[in-house]
């Protein structure tokens, strides 16, 4: 009985949301994201009122000139300490969610996630190499090397998976997934080997563990700008693929019958998805469940049309990860817990709930 009413409620909610015009929905999600960002900035070792944050940020645009009724250090905290991390989390969240939509749509499998075809292990290997290289002990900082190698590792591993999976001009989905599994295994083996053999490993191993657990520990703007540019460009390009992704829902042959060059689009989707995933991973480490759960929840609420699903997931992923990042910072102050812990703790049960409540929809 209770389950039935719950289901009905969900159905009503879904019906109501679907009836709303798309721009209004997206606008509402934007508003929620803005609000969440303000809250995330206000929480911390020294709480800052939301009104003050809003004024500081608006002053930053140069268009507004609110009188300064706050401590100058507050301004520094907002702009230099908290905003980069919060914006980084939002960017990473939306990148992972959009990549999730891309891979789920392309593979026609709602259980696919952005790390499925090698991105995670490639990035991890890249980061591991950065941690054990002697440069960081000489220069005292590896902030540049680590994201760079993680990014390169992720891209290279996806290209490797794609090359292995390509048989006679085609890339069958099954081969793609199997190649992903194989490449993952090999890269993890290399990572273990490096960690075991390297004399520098003991310096890096804790930092590496933290990185693998995921976290947006960024306190400078320039990586945000670089990564943000890649992610925004990727998300915009993904939006242009909405119709293609819809057609992929019919299967590859069905899409071909609708006049699409399936293999070309598959490659394009893989490149786009991997590019934004790699960009996100380079500043955040491996954060699970955002790319899996967000598209899922959005699809459940708004339907499967990618024209709406993609932007909604971008906003939803940003909201989800900003909140998770906030929890990670405030749960056990002054320590910052890995964000991956919270996305998994929130995401996994939610995911299970979705699975158990709609068994029918999840056949391959």
């Amino acid at each position: 009985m209770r389950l039935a009413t719950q289901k009905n409620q969900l159905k009503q909610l879904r019906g109501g949301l679907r009836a709303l015009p798309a721009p209004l929905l997206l606008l509402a999600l934007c508003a929620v994201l803005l609000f969440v960002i303000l809250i995330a900035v206000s929480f911390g070792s020294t709480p800052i009122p939301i009104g003050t944050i809003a004024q500081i940020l608006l002053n930053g645009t140069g268009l507004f000139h609110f009188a300064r009724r706050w401590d100058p250090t507050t301004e520094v905290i907002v702009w230099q300490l908290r905003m980069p991390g919060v914006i980084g989390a939002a960017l990473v969240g939306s990148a992972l969610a959009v990549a999730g939509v891309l891979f789920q749509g392309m593979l026609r499998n709602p259980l696919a996630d952005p790390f499925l075809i090698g991105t995670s292990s490639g990035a991890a290997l890249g980061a591991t190499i950065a941690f054990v290289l002697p440069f960081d002990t000489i220069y005292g900082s590896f902030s540049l090397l680590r994201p760079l190698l993680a990014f390169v590792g992720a891209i290279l591993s996806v290209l490797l998976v794609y090359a292995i999976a390509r048989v006679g001009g085609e890339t069958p989905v099954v081969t793609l997934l199997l190649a992903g599994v194989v490449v993952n295994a090999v890269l993890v083996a290399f990572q273990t080997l490096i960690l075991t053999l390297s004399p520098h490993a003991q310096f890096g191993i804790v930092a590496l563990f933290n990185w693998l657990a995921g976290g947006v520990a960024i306190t400078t703007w320039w990586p945000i700008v670089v990564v943000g540019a890649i992610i925004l460009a990727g998300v915009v390009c993904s939006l242009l693929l909405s119709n293609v992704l819809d057609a992929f829902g019919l299967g590859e042959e069905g899409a071909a019958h609708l006049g699409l060059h399936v293999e070309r689009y598959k490659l394009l989707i893989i490149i786009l998805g991997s590019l934004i995933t790699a960009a996100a991973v380079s500043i955040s480490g491996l954060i699970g469940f955002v790319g899996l759960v967000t598209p899922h929840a959005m699809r459940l609420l708004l339907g499967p049309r990618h024209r709406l699903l993609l932007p909604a997931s971008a906003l939803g992923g940003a909201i989800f990860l900003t909140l998770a990042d906030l929890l990670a910072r405030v749960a056990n102050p002054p320590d910052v817990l890995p964000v991956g812990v919270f996305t998994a703790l929130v995401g996994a049960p939610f995911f299970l709930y979705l699975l158990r409540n709609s068994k029918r929809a999840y056949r391959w």
Partner: protein
Amino acid sequence: MVVIASKTLLEVLLDVDGITFGYEQQPLLYDVHIQVRKGEMVGLLGPNGSGKTTLLRLVSGVLRPQQGKIILDGRELRDWGRRGIAQLIAVVPQELHVPFAFTVEQLVSLGRTPFVSLFGSGSRHDTLIVQDAMHAADITPLAGRIFNELSGGERQRVIVAMALAQQPKLLLLDEPTAHLDIKYQIDMLELVQRLNRERVVTVIAAMHDLNLAARYFPRLLLFQRGVVADASPAEVLEPRLLKRVYGVNVQVGILRGAQHLSVLPPGSAVGDDERQWEGEPQVLVMAGGGSGELLMRALADASIPFIAGPLNIGDSDHTLALRLASEVITEQPYAPISPATLEQVRTSLLRMKLLVLCPVPIGPGNLSLLQAALEAAHSKITVLILAPDSGGAQVATADEVLQRTGIAERDYTNGEGLRLMRELLQAGASVVGSIAEATEVTRRHVSLASSNS
């Protein structure tokens, strides 16, 4: 024939011109020729694995033929481009599984994909076409429902509507009724027939159900890695032909004016009756390249059952033998005689009284057949060598007889074939100078044999 004559006035929409295709090395379709005119409704029949689906995939451009070409609306298929093809051809698969919860209307609008810009959305015009397609397929009341929550029959109608939204000239259906119960099967075919008649959509459908195919399709193509028969249901649905292609005994009856088939499992009373009437074949005909055409027709006319083979798929004699012979020993296209096939020939020969060799060119690939014939001659099987244009003159010397067989002109084995032929004649094989003579000798032998036993 009259039907075809009146249709030549209509424009050819699809011209499949001698295509060959195979997965891996093995050819699956061999030298297939089909012409379909605008407004036709063609049913594609054939057992599983006969290449029906492959043919449809070739026509829809998903696969490319290894040889030959497909001409669609006056232009070669590959020149149309993917999008161009999608604007002319729509495909209805056996079953469509959509992993996400698309509504019926969303799915039907996907049919407009080949026409709208990939990045934009459909115009008012597109919306009207989608509405019209849903109306034509009778699914307007389902517009807001989730596709996955519909019944199988409703889903197939939605897929047809999606295909209609493409406003295709040619509609390809791959066993569209395979997963439906009888009510929805009829619904589906009625719908397709209506579209064919009212909207002049040309239809090609692969069909499993012979009865429904006979009922709804004025033209049937019987398919077995090539076109075996291409005519009206009354001509194609012939028990002997179906038995050879599908390997089961069937009986064709007329029910309420429409052609009606009932398929009986082998071993049933009717099947046994037919076998008795037909009799066990006691003649093996080795032919190829059209050399056996007249003889096989003559034997069939004389109701003498015979086995034909080995024949390569795609050989005109093979196609004819499928129609006329009791049994056909089949070899892959262009392939030399394989040991397995040769073994099959030897086993068959054990049951034979008579072996007829048609004037086939002898090369390294089929030299082994002459050896098998020689063994047969040694084991008291009568061997006839057909040499139709050799005249009936009485000849005396062995060399003259050998010359009569014409082996010298068709021997491409550096004399090995010639040597075997000479041995064959020495072993008692005789040369027959005409089809009539061959048929007569055969009739005598077969009746003699049956009266003896």
